[in-house]
């Protein structure tokens, strides 16, 4: 430290100010529209999507092999045709309905498992062991069980979907639950909440960031599984979903339709991410200051 700093700070005169009236808190001043739009993320993401589309198109042209990798334009055309003919929306509808059932089953299962795990030691052992055992199992392992228990069709599909949602969601939720601050948990117990109420009223909201990321992962894996599983079983002719559409197009080497089907998956994924997950985040954890 330099010697100059050794100087005492100067002694300054004191002063007292009359107290100004407190200004009223203002309503938020809106930013200019353009800036607001840009900050909202939509335009930035649209630009990003456009860039991705261009990269894809260029890559496809460069590969020059449209049976293997059709370009963006070709895919968009196939997608447009599929939508106009009403074929694609129908497939999407079938898939989405199955998906939602399997997803819901998985969410309920994860909730039950993690609740048990938080309440009892044996529940905890069960959860840890079952996730470690069953999570790595591919869907084909479940096929025989599904056939025996549910027979063909919807039931088996829902079962397999549940398998793909349940474990990752249970893992994420469980990790989130266990990271909830001890003080919050103690407060909940202090107010006489029972084990179930502790879970629903303390752990779930406090672990919501982890649960939401689990839900997103589960959602994505449900799609992956659905597309794969609709090919393997559960399709009775004519009543197939998006996976069937993709499989059939692939069998007939209509690769642009395959990609159109996948583009539909992507579009639904983006829609869900923005309409559902991000809205939920904005209304909950972001609002609560639990996430930046």
């Amino acid at each position, binding site marked *: 430290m330099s010697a100059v700093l050794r100087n005492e700070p100067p002694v300054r005169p004191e002063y007292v100010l009359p107290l100004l009236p407190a200004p009223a808190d203002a309503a938020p001043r809106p930013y200019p529209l353009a800036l607001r739009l840009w900050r909202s993320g939509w335009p930035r993401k649209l630009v990003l999507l456009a860039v991705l589309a261009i990269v894809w198109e260029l890559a496809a042209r460069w590969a020059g092999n449209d049976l293997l990798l059709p370009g963006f334009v070709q895919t968009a055309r196939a997608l447009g045709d599929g939508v106009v003919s009403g074929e694609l929306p129908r497939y999407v509808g079938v898939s989405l309905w199955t998906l939602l059932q399997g997803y819901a089953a998985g969410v309920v299962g994860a909730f039950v498992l993690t609740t048990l795990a938080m309440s009892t030691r044996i529940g905890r052992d069960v959860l840890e062991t079952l996730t470690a055992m069953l999570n790595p199992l591919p869907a084909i392992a479940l096929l025989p069980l599904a056939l025996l228990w549910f*027979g063909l069709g919807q039931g088996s599909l829902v079962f397999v979907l549940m398998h793909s949602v349940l474990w990752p969601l249970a893992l994420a939720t469980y990790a989130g639950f266990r990271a909830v601050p001890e003080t919050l948990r103690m407060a909940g117990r202090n107010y006489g909440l029972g084990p179930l109420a502790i879970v629903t009223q303390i752990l779930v909201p406090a672990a919501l960031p982890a649960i939401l990321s689990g839900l997103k992962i589960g959602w994505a894996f449900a799609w992956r599984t659905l597309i794969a599983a609709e090919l393997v079983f559960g399709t009775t*002719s004519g009543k197939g979903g998006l996976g069937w559409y993709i499989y059939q197009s692939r069998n007939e080497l209509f690769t642009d339709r395959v990609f159109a089907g996948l583009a539909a998956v992507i579009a639904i994924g983006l829609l869900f991410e923005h309409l559902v997950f991000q809205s939920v985040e904005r209304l909950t954890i972001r609002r609560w200051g639990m996430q930046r």
Partner: protein
Amino acid sequence: EGKLRVAQQFGITYLLLNVAQDQKLIEKHGQKQGVPVSVEWVQLSGGNAVNDALLSGSIDVAGAGVGPLLTIWDRTAGRQNVKGVASLGNYPYYLVSTNPDVKTIADFSDKDRIALPAVTVSVQARFLQMAAAKRWGTGEYARLDRYTQTLPHPDAAAAVVAGRTEINGHFATPPFQEQELAGNPKAHIVLNSYDVLGGPSSGTVLYATEKYVKENPKTTRAFIDALAEAADIATKNPELAADAYLRVTKAKIDRAFLVKILKNPQFQYKVAPTNTYGLAQFLFQAGAIKKQPATWRDYFFDHPALASGS
């Protein structure tokens, strides 16, 4: 020249390839042609994976059903121009049912579930449609589709052998059909693909891109010659073929049972395609392919060994 990557799928229908590999026949015939051939054998599952591998240049010759050949021929016309190289022999596909009430395809009802490797698009599904078209008229070809159900062969076979599930029918492929017939006393043949097509017909074929065949005429020739010799061996000496199969695939299937299957008089080991045009025409009528082949030669490369094809 001299390099050959062959993709095959699982099953007895690829027997000729197994024999050729086991006996090193391709290398032998390459020598005869004056090119040392190095062969790489790739195992893939599913016609789609095979097609993708072929189109991406990861393999040179692909093995799959006649159906996929026609599709890829139709779709690559004017581009890669994929065509057949050889057939892998004629094998009957049986539609097996465990429902005693089902004697013919007309007896199927809502109580029945017929497993197919892929409904509407697999070759078994096409055979079923052809049978329906024959019986009820061309417009009614899709009549049985609503009893069908996608299920991979092994799972379908397990279901048929064991009973206890809704699956009581399976349009199969060797050796699953034989296993079903042997494993479940109630199982019986309802339909034979030979009957649909009016005689023995090729099930599995090999195909390649025009580019490869043009650039590697000697290798291609050696390959086909080797297959022809393998067909010869299999016809004359099924035991040897069975051993080759077991050695190459490391399959655990019982040898005696395998030999019995291979000795099935309906099996014909030959490289010339047989009775494929009927299917091609049907596919065109059903709209599955857009181009109408004038003859079977449209979708096969020329080769003396195939001359007797149809």
